[in-house]
């Protein structure tokens, strides 16, 4: 498997008044194509920060992340937006859906954002069809016109999953996708993620749950901002 994402010497610190909080202290890791990687760690260990940096939602204070050899630090403006839009798909713990939009509109939003208003007219029908297929795959066929606040937690997360996949990203980044769900609903979300992995999707997931980590192909344990160990599975 070829290396897709490579993080080298990642440090991230925040200024808290006069003090400096070092969240990540020199993280080296890589993500291989087609793998299911879990980053596990206690609350405050820096795992979500690392995921945000891998997905170019945040920049490291020191170090760099390279995507297929290109440093994300060098990406600016449209190139950075395109990376977030086309290469990675994010699933957040708190879903982060747009409440004013319907389920279908939420799912097609990244496709719209990526092509602009004029480009949208040419891909509209194809994108809507794909969104409907994804929502059907995740059991939300009857919820297309519903607003996110009319859905259960599991349905919201499945909508977020469909949104993350609409542009067929190379890497799916999931930040505690089951953290806000009951165990049964969370298990359903995990099964969906596992089936995506079986279909060849590269997945990086952050969790603090050892049982979830056990289902991954490879596990990186993060403790106080440093990689403690890397295992095939726990």
């Amino acid at each position, binding site marked *: 498997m070829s290396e897709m994402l490579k993080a080298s010497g990642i440090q991230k610190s925040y200024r808290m008044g006069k003090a400096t909080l070092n969240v990540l202290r020199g993280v080296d890791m890589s993500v291989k194509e087609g793998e299911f990687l879990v980053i596990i760690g206690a609350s405050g260990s820096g795992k979500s920060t690392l995921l945000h940096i891998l997905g170019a939602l945040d920049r490291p204070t020191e170090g760099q992340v390279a995507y297929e050899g290109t440093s994300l630090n060098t990406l600016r403006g449209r190139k950075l*937006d395109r990376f*977030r839009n086309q290469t990675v798909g*994010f699933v*957040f713990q708190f879903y982060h859906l*747009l409440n004013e939009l319907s389920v279908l509109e939420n799912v097609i939003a990244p496709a719209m*954002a990526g092509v*602009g208003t004029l480009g949208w007219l040419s891909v509209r029908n194809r994108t809507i069809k794909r969104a409907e297929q994804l929502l059907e795959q995740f059991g939300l066929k009857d919820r297309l016109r519903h607003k996110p606040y009319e859905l259960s937690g599991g349905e919201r997360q499945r909508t977020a999953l469909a949104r993350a996949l609409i*542009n067929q990203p190379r890497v799916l980044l999931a930040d505690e996708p089951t953290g806000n769900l009951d165990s049964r609903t969370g298990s359903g979300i995990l099964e969906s993620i596992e089936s995506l992995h079986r279909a060849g999707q590269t997945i990086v997931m952050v969790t603090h749950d050892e049982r979830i980590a056990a289902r991954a192909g490879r596990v990186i344990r993060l403790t106080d901002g440093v990689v403690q160990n890397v295992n095939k599975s726990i």
Partner: protein
Amino acid sequence: MEKEQAMLLLLFLMLGIITVFIVFVVLYMIVGHTSRDIGILRSIGAPTGGVAVVFEGFAVLTGVFGAGIGLAGGCVFLWRMNAIEQWLYTHYGWQLWDRSLYAIDAIPTQVDLWLVVSIFAVAVTACLVGGLAPSVKAGLKRPVETLQVSQI
């Protein structure tokens, strides 16, 4: 008459400045309230310019609708001004236009198309200028900051 026109011009200038300020404040507050949504849009790859255009477009549309409604209201008022004045005089004995001072029996009304277009353009421009800074601020928001704040 020239003094009155200069006075009116000054009044319009002040109104323009106030409009810019009001649009700036309102849009700034809207950007603050929609921080989470902006963060979501940025995280799914919406470009800085795209997000800024949404807010700037909102400001311009507000200007177009506001100026349109104001101009329509102004034109209707001008059209019926003498009738309104007559109605006020008949019902309340209140005469705005003292006939003993001016040698005309009706308030003169004239719509200058160039002036109408200018006022419309100034109003829309005022909204555009007022919305510029908040729109740019919205576009430049970093996704991770707004998303982290929204989940606290």
